[in-house]
Every structure is written in structure tokens, then in C-alpha cells.
């Protein structure tokens, strides 16, 4: 079986996000880009399934984006992915999740992947859209926000998080799954893994390789447009409450009720 792990390059969680001069995006200056944390679970899960199956299963990491995404592909290879594909073309720029899904679906289609793994969301656009859109375009079932995954022949059982509980989904392969914290503990890349990943050839895919027109991808193929970015509204300065514990508690309760009117 071929397992695809979709990996995205995103600002690391510690990054301070500043808006650029014309409010059209974020200022990439000083930001460290890393593999989307949820995609680490996806790569790890793919490798574990390969290790469990002990057959000819391979894990292929795929990333769509500018040259910097090669770093996250190398990370995936260093963790243990077998192959990597870098999907890049000026025409792909500015795509919304659906436009990106259209591209990724056509990259994946000829691979005949049995399982597509990704993250529950990109911690940049927080969209949670790309994987289910790919699943729809490929006509395969989906299980999102998964914390337990069992594959038994052609059948998948996936436990996923919902409000106040869990839901168990049963579906058939091929399937698309998004990974949530708790699914596994992603391994660190080993030194030999890193050395091997450095030498590994990463396949490039451009628009010309895909059965898509320029107006179906990138900004032109998007169904929405960005208007502007905004900083978070400033909160008024904190009101500190003095006194001993009993006084503080009494005053806090009073303020929450009379001033903030939230209890």
C-alpha cells in the first residue's frame, strides 16, 4: 500500500506573528518555519503502519508551497518517510484550501494511495479544510481529528474527538484521515536518518505535470479572497485585586457579577 503523509510548513508555535506593512499577510521576518505539529502525527502514523504491515508499504510525504517547504519534506524523510514530493509552481500561489486540495488531489490520484494522512488543521490558516476536500475530490471516505486508528485489511476503524466525547467511524480503504494529538508520539529524526534525508532526491511537481488549468489553482482557482489582516483587539489593562484571600475572593465575585456581568 502507498501511504501519503501531507505535510505543511508553518510558523513554529512560539513565533510572534506580526502583520506586514500593507496588512495583506504576515511578516515572515524572523519566523522559524517548522512542520505543522499535527502533521508530525501523520508522518509518524504512516511509518508505524508500514512497520506493522511489514510488506511493500511505502510512506510518501507531500508538501505544496514555496522552496522553504523542502525543509519539512527533509524532516519527514529523516523521520522515516520513503519518498517526498515537492509541489510548487508560481500558479499555485495564494490558493485557498479548496484550490490547494484540487492540486494535491491530482498529485495523489496517480499514486493510487491507500491511505492519506494529514493534520487536523494547519496552525497557520486554521482551516481544517484541505484533507476533507481532497477526500471529496478523490471520492473516498474521511475520518477527521483521529486519536486512534486501526487498519484491518481493507477496513479502517477510527476514534475521533467530538464535543463532550468520542465518535468511532468505520470506513473502507482508501481513506483520508486527519491526526490529532494523542494518536501517537512522533519520533525524533535519527542522525543516520538526517544524513540519508539530505541525499534523498525530492521529486518536483509543477502545474504542467497535472491535468489542471491555471484558472483552477492558486488565487485564480480560489472561491474567496483575503481582504486584510488585523491585529487582535487590545484588552484594557488588568484590574488587580488586593487584600487577603477572603477579601480578594469577595471583591472578585462582586466585580464579576456587577461590573463584568458574567456570573
Amino acid at each position, binding site marked *: 500500500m502507498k501511504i501519503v503523509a501531507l505535510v505543511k510548513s508553518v510558523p513554529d508555535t512560539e513565533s510572534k506573528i506580526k502583520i506586514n506593512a500593507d496588512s495583506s499577510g504576515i511578516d515572515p521576518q524572523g519566523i522559524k518555519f517548522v512542520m505543522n505539529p499535527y502533521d508530525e502525527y501523520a508522518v509518524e502514523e504512516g511509518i508505524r503502519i508500514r512497520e506493522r504491515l511489514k510488506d511493500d508499504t511505502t510512506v510518501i510525504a507531500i508538501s505544496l508551497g514555496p522552496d522553504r517547504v523542502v525543509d519539512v519534506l527533509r524532516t519527514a524523510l529523516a523521520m522515516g518517510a520513503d519518498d517526498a514530493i515537492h509541489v510548487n509552481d508560481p500558479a499555485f500561489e495564494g490558493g485557498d484550501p479548496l484550490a490547494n486540495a484540487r492540486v494535491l488531489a491530482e498529485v495523489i490520484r496517480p499514486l493510487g494511495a491507500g491511505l492519506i494522512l494529514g493534520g487536523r488543521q494547519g496552525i497557520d490558516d486554521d482551516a481544517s479544510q484541505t484533507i476533507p476536500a481532497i477526500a471529496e475530490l478523490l471520492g473516498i471516505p474521511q475520518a477527521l481529528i483521529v486519536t486512534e486508528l486501526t487498519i484491518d485489511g481493507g477496513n479502517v476503524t477510527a476514534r475521533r474527538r467530538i464535543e463532550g466525547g468520542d465518535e468511532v467511524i468505520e470506513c473502507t480503504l482508501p481513506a483520508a484521515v486527519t491526526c490529532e494529538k494523542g494518536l501517537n508520539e512522533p519520533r525524533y529524526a535519527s542522525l543516520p536518518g538526517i544524513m540519508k534525508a539530505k541525499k534523498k532526491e525530492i521529486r518536483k511537481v509543477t502545474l504542467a505535470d497535472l491535468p489542471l488549468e491555471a484558472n483552477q489553482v492558486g488565487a485564480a482557482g480560489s472561491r474567496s479572497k483575503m481582504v486584510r489582516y488585523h491585529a487582535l483587539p487590545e484588552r484594557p489593562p488588568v484590574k488587580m485585586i488586593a487584600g487577603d484571600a*477572603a477579601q480578594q475572593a469577595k471583591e472578585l465575585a462582586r466585580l464579576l457579577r456587577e461590573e463584568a456581568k458574567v456570573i
Partner: protein
Amino acid sequence: MANGILVFGEIRGGGLKSVTREIVTAAAELSAAGGGPVAIALIGDGIDAAVTEACALPVEKVYVVRDTQLAAYSTQGYTAALKAIIAQSGANTVLFAATAMGKDLSARAAAACDAALFTDCTEIALNNGALHIKRPVYSGKVIVEMEATAPLQFASIRPNVNAPAAGAGSAAVVEVAAAVDAGAIQGRVKEVTATSGGKKDLTEAEVIVSGGRSLKSGDNFKILQDLADVLGASVGASRAAVDAGYVPHSMQVGQTGKVVNPKLYIAVGISGAIQHLVGMRTSKVIVAINKDENAPIFQKADYGVVGDLFEIVPHLTEECKQLLAHS
């Protein structure tokens, strides 16, 4: 151009989820801005109770697809049913709650309908008929304003953004025949298990009391639970408390936990690391209780109390109990 707003009515345990009422409020605002009539879409089998509830809401019509194939949720089956409802209703705007089900279905259906989709919106409006929204991105560190450019436009809206609509209507039921092909459903929900013991999930809670590593044990979370019980709140936690094994990951708030949006968030013994803040900083009112006056959480709080949580929280529980008893 087609006109009208459809609200996907989420059914859990036979009844309409209360968050659907919030989305009806958002739909009514769009309707007042020229978005056309509001209708609710209901999908399932044996859903009479939910249909009755939906008809009492201030909407014009309730479109219903009933099919034994749809007794359990399936992304593909529900997508087919929703497509049929969209076609019959002529709606061009479809709103969902940004819940597990709402996000699962909206992402799939948007791809199936080639529609614009905005996830997790905190503000929505219409600009010449086009959905114009704001949503937090970069894990809530900034807000992006966006507009739809497609004839069909979808959005999911965070819980607690809108007040729930009250039931005063008498909407007409329109039964929609959707030929749902059983063979085309390759996956479905087999089992649902509750882990919250009937308490509201953090993502939907109006009041949250969260504890950190400083609680020192799972047992000590009882003092937070006591306060939560008085306030009708749900209990959350920092990652440090989850990693220490005090409470399960389903209670974690933050970047790798849940993003919450309550009226009131009380952070007890939580330092205020950026990965925690991004999960709770859209809360309307934030209270920080921490023994370190320099804890970063105070910079994001509206009310701050410096002191020992083991002393302050029990007093606070007592004070709140008294205040609420006299109201």
C-alpha cells in the same frame, strides 16, 4: 442569483443542538441585511423531535431529508442530502456551527459544491450579497478578514459568538427526496461515547475554570470542580496539567488542545504560555489567579488576583455561592 440562507441543524441524541439556535441568530442578521429568507436543513432518520424544535424557531422553512441510510452520521451521505436541500431551497449561503460535525460536513460539502468556505468565523456579514467574515488565524494570534467570490458560500461560526434564537416561529416543513445511494457511503459513525459526564464541552461552555500544573494532582482539581459546579462551568486545564496525568487531554485548552470562547475564563495557577493563551484569549472576560505577580497570564487578563490558589479558590466558591443564592 439564488438567494436565501440555510442553517445546517445539528442533531445529537435525537434533539436539535443548542448551538444551532445561535447560528439561526447569525442567519437572521444576514437576512435583515438582504440575504433572503432563513431556513433550517435537517438530515437523519427518526428525527421528529428535532423537526418540531426547528419549526418553532424564527425561520421560514425547515427542509428535511429522512432516510434510514442516514440514521447514523456519514460524511458522504449527509453531503449528498445537504446538496439536495441546497438545490431545492435555492439558498446561496449555508451556515454551520463550528463543531466537529459542522466542520466535517462543511469542508466536504464545500468541495462537493465548489463553494467558498470559511471555518471558525467570529464575525459574519454580507457585502453586496457576498459573505464577508472575520476569523482568527495563526492559532488565534491574528484575525483575517475575507470575502467569498463564488455563487455558493459557506461558513462555520464558533459557538458562543451569537445569542441563541428564541422559539416563536411556526415554520413549514418541506420534505426533500434525496436519492442517497447506500453504496456511495463508504464510512459512517458506529458508536458515540460521552466522556464529559453530561457537562458542556469546553468548546461550547459559557464559563470555564481551568487549572495548571500548580494543582499538583488530579484530586486537587476537585476544588476547581466545586467552583465550576456553582458557576455552571466546565473545567479545563493547561498542557502541563494534562502531561502530568492530572486530567485527560480532552480537557486541555490551547494550541494542541481545544480553542475555547466562553463569556468567562478563570485561569487558576496557569502561567500564561503563548500556546495556552492562543486557546482562550477570545474569551470575553479573563480572570487570572496566580501566586506570581509577574506571571504572563496577568497581561492578558481583565481581573487579576495574586495569591495561593488553594486559599483563594475555596473562598471564591463560597462567595459565588452566596451571591448566586441571593439572585
